């Protein structure tokens, strides 16, 4: 067992136990605290894989933004019935069932990726300019699209587990010329951002302080 595997087990255990803590704890603010560790553990796994930019974004957006928002909302609105959540046995059973089904789906989807990607070359780890690759992908620059993503829609679907790394400038595979398309993620990215903005405005409108007519009439 090398250092990377050991660190992965540590981070996975931290994330897993924190996620269990979120579900099991009966105090809603403590659940938010456990969620902090789960999100930080996920960021740690990103750093372990060498995706520094994604890990830092996870910390900035999830921990520093989303979780703070959740905790503010939870803390300032936690009335009596919500501070101590008591869950009945039937709810436990249904939740456990749904969780197992979801776990099964994820496991089946992830399992065929059998070749683990370990950064054993220390210099390669240091020079991984992950933000540059992400920028090029957003703009649809051809070299950044891996060959197994850039496909003509009439190509046959790849067999699960056949994801070999080939030179991304290869223009023909198995003797057949493969026309390359460029995938630019910028437009979907912007659409999702606008969508989030709409959701935020909607939530703020729904949560606005409504004038209570009865108090005003009583005063007059």
């Amino acid at each position, binding site marked *: 067992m090398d250092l990377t595997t050991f660190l992965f087990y540590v981070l996975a255990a931290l994330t897993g136990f924190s996620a269990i803590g979120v579900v099991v704890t009966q*105090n809603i*603010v*403590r659940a938010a*605290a456990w969620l*902090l560790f789960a999100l*930080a553990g996920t960021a740690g796994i990103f750093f372990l894989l060498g995706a*520094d*930019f994604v890990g*830092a*974004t996870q*910390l*900035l957006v999830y*921990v*520093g*933004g989303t*979780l*703070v928002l959740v*905790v*503010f909302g939870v*803390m*300032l609105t936690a009335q009596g019935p919500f501070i101590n959540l008591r869950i009945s046995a039937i709810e436990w059973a249904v939740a456990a069932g749904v969780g197992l089904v979801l776990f099964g789906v994820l496991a089946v989807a992830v399992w065929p990726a059998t070749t683990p990607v370990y950064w054993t070359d220390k210099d390669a780890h*240091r*020079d*991984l*300019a*992950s*933000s540059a690759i992400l920028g090029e992908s957003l703009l649809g620059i051809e070299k950044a699209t891996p060959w197994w993503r850039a496909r003509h829609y009439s190509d046959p679907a790849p067999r699960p587990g056949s994801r070999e790394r080939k030179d991304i400038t290869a223009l023909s595979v198995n003797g057949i010329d493969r026309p390359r398309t460029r995938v630019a993620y910028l437009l979907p990215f912007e659409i999702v951002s606008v969508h989030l903005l709409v959701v935020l405005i909607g939530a703020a409108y729904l949560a606005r302080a409504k004038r209570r007519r009865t108090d005003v009439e009583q005063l007059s």
Partner: protein
Amino acid sequence: MVDLLKWIGLPPFIAEALSPIIQVALLVGFVLVSAIYFIWLERKVAGRIQDRLGPTRVGGKFGWLQTIADGIKLLVKEDLIPADADHMLFRLGPYIAFCGSFGAFIALPFADGWAARVLSISVFFMLAVMSSEVFGIILAGYGSGSKWALFGGMREAAQMVSYEVPMAVCVLVPVIVAGSMDLNYIANQQNGGFWNWYLFHDPFTFGAFWTYFTCATASCKRAPFDLAEAESELVAGFHTEYSGLRWSFFFMAEYASMFAVSGIATLLFLGGWNTGLTPALSHVFSHPLESGFDIGALFGNLINVAVFIVKSWLLVFVMMWVRWTLPRLRIDQVMMTCLKYLLPISCVLLLGVSVWQVLVPTALEVWVRVIFAAACLLIVLWTGFKIVSTPSMLPTPSVPAFAAAAKRDQ
């Protein structure tokens, strides 16, 4: 560090295993020693600005050991947790705050290549890790079970989260000039003379430095944005119920993040570890030995580390100076400053520097830098000369009591 250990004679496997441990030990030691020094410096600076001396008894004439005495007192204090407090969250708060502040030091380079981990996105990493400090404040405020703590914690969290936005936008300004988020690379771009520093690069980076410094002061909860410690309003904000070592964890976190943001400002705007008067020292002293290890570069880098630390300590001193000079802002003034002033200013600076990078020809850019740097140097020298040469005067006889006393003493 790995090269140094290999040169000493350790086998490569042990050198690589031991190197991160040594780096982390050095960082932790440095942060703690810095915190001890800052606490003493704060009390001395506070004293002098308020026309008194500060600590003078413990450890000789200058009170060097005052912080040690304070530390011993804090260690032996009773560990008190209020009955209404949420035990787990109350205990968790200080540790999260300290880890959030300290984790940023992993990516902070003290000399060329001398960071615990040289990341290609180091300034983004530092901002992201320091943003998780807010959570420690929130947990401390809520978990204390006291209304002063809850109000203080909420206000403090709102302030810290709001000021992260203009701070990040101001950090983007030198990143655009350099073309990289790697602090190591940005500081290397500023080697040579002090006219290469990004502070003088164009008017927009100059403005970005002051705006960044203001946002950094606010995000470190320092005066004039220090509502957390507003004794007159909130008893003591989110750390009301904390005493002893738990309280000192919060303050170590505060001094660590003060040094971290000052370090970022130094690297982004003030040339980092470069002296500003000599070419890159690791090249000047370069002297590779037969084994391939460059001992001259090691010596040059040690000098660079000292220069970096002195520059950052100078910025921390400016933060302390501002604290004891300006009055405290109200919470609505704090939020208004951020949202109505600093955020639009930083957006204008971002736009300006982007336009500058695209439109201004290189020759004009060089002239602007040199003239700017010369003008700032002249202003600094003139100010220093005036401070030193202005005679300090006795109270004037226009005040009757002093006039009588002066007549009596004659």
